[in-house]
């Protein structure tokens, strides 16, 4: 990030966004990590001090949005970044911000995840948010564009005093490309909040709100003119001979251009501002074609708009390309070949069929060897018994759903485990055990915990405190007493928090997951009490713990299986499910490279066959 102007570097989209924001004079940024947007925060955390700007991890996306919006209200250029579902959380504050407006550039980066290749919950298409919120939306298709269009978005935001949504998708966020660096200005990091009671309060009587709403629409009309004029929406291969014109946006543009390298040039209208759309530009572009092919991932948003704009043209899109799942470059190639009547020699279908004939065991994500959560899952499964309901939440522990443990019955949204647990307790006598991570608990677990205590509920809530926000790539959070910029700060104690929420002091326990018996006993006792209880299972994420040990040269005591004692019950492999254990013939073996020495397998082995490895 500290590299000089004019240099070319390879950046993934997330890094390019940060560079672009810095070149645009970013003064403050706030984020809650969520893949595929996480590396935006990571990069900001790395460079903030050096760049002389402020960056923080906020407790959730709504808070992050508010922090950044407030900076922009006070005249400092700001940015917030989140994953698609994060925008749902932030949307409560996004909607009024279009009314209130900003005084300096304010860009809200949102990362969608078609095919959910890096996150869960669903294939939400956040392009609709721009329309509900009445704010412009800019979309980039590669790293260089990320950098350029973020700067564009800041200018647009400031010029029209509106938040601007900057939408990315996984393959752009995590796609790398060459970026030419520009000049870094001295950022403006100090502002001043100028009071404007009338503008900043959207209050009844309705007349005033209606007037503000009207103004937003007038503003959007003006932005539409910009959308018509600016090169953010541009045509390539304008002169190419063709009866089909292509309209596309985002990552799909790169697949289209790649396909045209092979099929020959065709005219393409690339939409960089998906709201408001350049309606006249679309009409003008469409004029000379009899067919328009719209290439966009997820919902047919552009397609529906194009169809309305040029009702006399044939518009195709989702009849050739899928609505669900991300596009693959070959999907786009074949769609283009089909619509133009061109041939493509390679038979992708046959190739896929041949490939499917190979027998390859699946390899899904698994809890890492030594992960403290494994011990808690296995303990909860044994303690809870059959019929226990396990409401789950968002984090590495989503892997509790693996059949070895089967302790994550459903995943809805951040913090939802606690709300659902209470609801189930109100209508069923089943045991209910919740798993929620430290960061997720602080993100959205507190209001439902207060609710559960207030409304006299009795689930067992296990907070898996691994001292970090692990799944998104190890970001700090308030329970570790460390800020994004690496400064020590007040550490939020989850136990204290639980008591303050109304959980009886006697029902708040702390356990070390590496002590299997203590973990099991705590869960068993809590279930027998039939009262609302919180168990904090605290142990640092082993990825970090091992990294530290290696760095400090601390000896890691690995384990091995004594096959003269092993009775081949398979608990370590099939129920405890440690990936460091596998079979060689009939014997169970621990892989020396993978074992991190947690030793929990030796505690769960009923035959005492797993022991510290004797040094060679």
């Amino acid at each position, binding site marked *: 990030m500290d590299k000089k102007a004019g240099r070319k*570097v*390879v950046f*993934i989209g997330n890094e390019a966004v940060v560079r672009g924001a810095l070149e645009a004079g970013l003064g403050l940024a706030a984020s809650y990590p969520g*893949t*595929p947007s*996480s590396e935006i925060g990571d990069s900001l955390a790395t460079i903030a001090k050096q760049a002389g700007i402020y960056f923080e991890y906020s407790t959730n996306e709504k808070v992050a949005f508010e922090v950044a919006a407030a900076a922009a209200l006070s005249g400092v250029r700001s940015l917030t970044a989140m994953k698609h579902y994060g925008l749902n959380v932030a949307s409560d504050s996004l909607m009024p911000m279009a009314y209130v407006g900003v005084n300096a550039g304010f860009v809200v980066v949102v990362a969608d995840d078609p095919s959910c*290749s*890096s*996150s869960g919950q669903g294939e939400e298409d956040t392009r609709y948010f721009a329309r509900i919120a009445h704010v412009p939306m800019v979309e980039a298709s*590669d790293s260089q564009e990320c950098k350029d269009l973020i700067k564009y978005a800041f200018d647009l935001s400031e010029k029209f005093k509106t938040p601007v949504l900057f939408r990315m998708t996984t*393959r752009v966020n*995590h*796609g*790398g*490309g*060459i970026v030419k660096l520009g000049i870094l200005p001295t950022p403006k990091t100090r502002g001043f909040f100028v009071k404007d009671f009338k503008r900043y309060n959207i209050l009844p009587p309705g007349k005033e709100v209606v007037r503000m709403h009207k103004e937003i629409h007038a503003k959007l009309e003006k932005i539409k003119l910009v959308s018509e004029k600016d090169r953010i929406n541009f045509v390539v291969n304008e002169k190419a001979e063709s009866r089909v014109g292509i309209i596309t946006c985002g990552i799909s543009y*790169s*697949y289209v*251009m*790649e396909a045209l390298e*092979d099929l020959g040039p065709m005219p393409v209208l690339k939409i960089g501002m998906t709201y408001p759309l350049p309606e006249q530009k679309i009409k003008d572009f469409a004029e000379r074609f009899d067919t328009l092919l719209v290439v966009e991932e997820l919902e047919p948003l552009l397609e529906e708009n194009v169809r309305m704009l040029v009702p006399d043209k044939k518009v195709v899109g989702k009849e050739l390309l899928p609505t669900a799942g991300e596009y*693959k*470059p*070959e999907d786009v*190639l074949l769609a283009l070949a089909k619509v133009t009547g061109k041939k493509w020699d*390679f038979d*992708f279908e046959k*190739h*896929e069929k*041949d*490939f499917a004939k*190979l*027998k*390859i*065991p*699946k*390899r*899904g*994500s*698994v*809890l*890492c060897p030594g992960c403290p959560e494994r011990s808690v899952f296995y303990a909860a499964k044994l303690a809870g018994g059959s019929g226990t309901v396990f409401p789950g939440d968002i984090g*590495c522990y*989503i*892997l509790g759903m*693996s059949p*070895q443990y089967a302790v994550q019955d459903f995943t809805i949204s951040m913090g939802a485990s606690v709300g659902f647990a209470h609801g189930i307790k109100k209508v069923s006598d089943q045991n209910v055990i919740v798993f929620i991570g430290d960061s997720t608990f602080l993100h959205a677990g507190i209001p439902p915990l207060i609710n559960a205590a207030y409304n006299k509920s009795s689930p067992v809530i296990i907070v898996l405190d691994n001292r970090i926000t692990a*799944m*998104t*790539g190890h970001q700090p959070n308030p329970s570790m007493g460390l800020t994004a910029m690496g400064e020590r700060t007040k550490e939020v104690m989850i136990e204290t928090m639980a008591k303050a929420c109304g959980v009886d002091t006697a029902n708040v326990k702390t356990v070390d997951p590496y002590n299997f018996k203590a973990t099991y006993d705590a869960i068993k006792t809590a279930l027998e009490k039939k009262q609302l209880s919180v168990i904090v299972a605290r142990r640092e994420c082993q990825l970090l713990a091992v990294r530290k040990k290696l760095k400090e040269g601390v000896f890691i005591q690995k384990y091995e299986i004594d096959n003269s004692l092993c009775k081949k019950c*398979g608990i370590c*492999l*099939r129920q405890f*499910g*440690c*990936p460091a254990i*596998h*079979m060689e013939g009939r014997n169970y073996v621990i*892989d020396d*490279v993978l074992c991190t020495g947690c030793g929990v397998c030796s505690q769960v082995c009923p035959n005492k066959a797993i022991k510290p490895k004797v040094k060679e």
Partner: protein
Amino acid sequence: MKDTFNIVITGVGGQGVLTLLKILAEAALKQGLEVKTSELHGLAQRGGSITCNLRFGKRVFSPMVRNGEANLIISLEELEAMRACRYASKEAKTNFLVNSYRMYPPMMYVNNEKYPDRKQITAGLKKFGRRAVFVDATAVVKKFVGNTRTANVYLLGRAKKEGFLPLSRESLLAAVKEFFPEKHFDINKKAFDLGMKK
């Protein structure tokens, strides 16, 4: 596109697939080529299959390699090499460079599946690609470098040695140097040189 070179790097989350990708991208950049990459982050990194793409040439748009169009597949794990056959084809004359290190997917034991033996894997790779080279990268670096994490850089050297990579030794080494903190350069240089020696 015909003159674009497509590489697919696969392995298991945590093995250093991304590191290898970033080094190769930097080396291609150093040679003045257009570069596009595709990384994988998030939950998939936790012990799951990881597939990353790298494409370089004069004009490159898509960061993703189309099925059957990889020129080189580097796999840090045997089973994952087989899974990458989707990207291989006779037409693309795909070469495979495979670390003959095995990681057993825990689900295999729940689903009663078998990890294919070497013969089956070789047959699969040969069916889809041109050549398949297996090397004991993890074992070699464990013995001679003392750090299994350098297996990826060993494979980089080996890919160059086998003539699988249209990038110069100089730019590869320069990229290795740029990627790692200075104190880790020596062990990685050692791993690279070991790979170059076979």
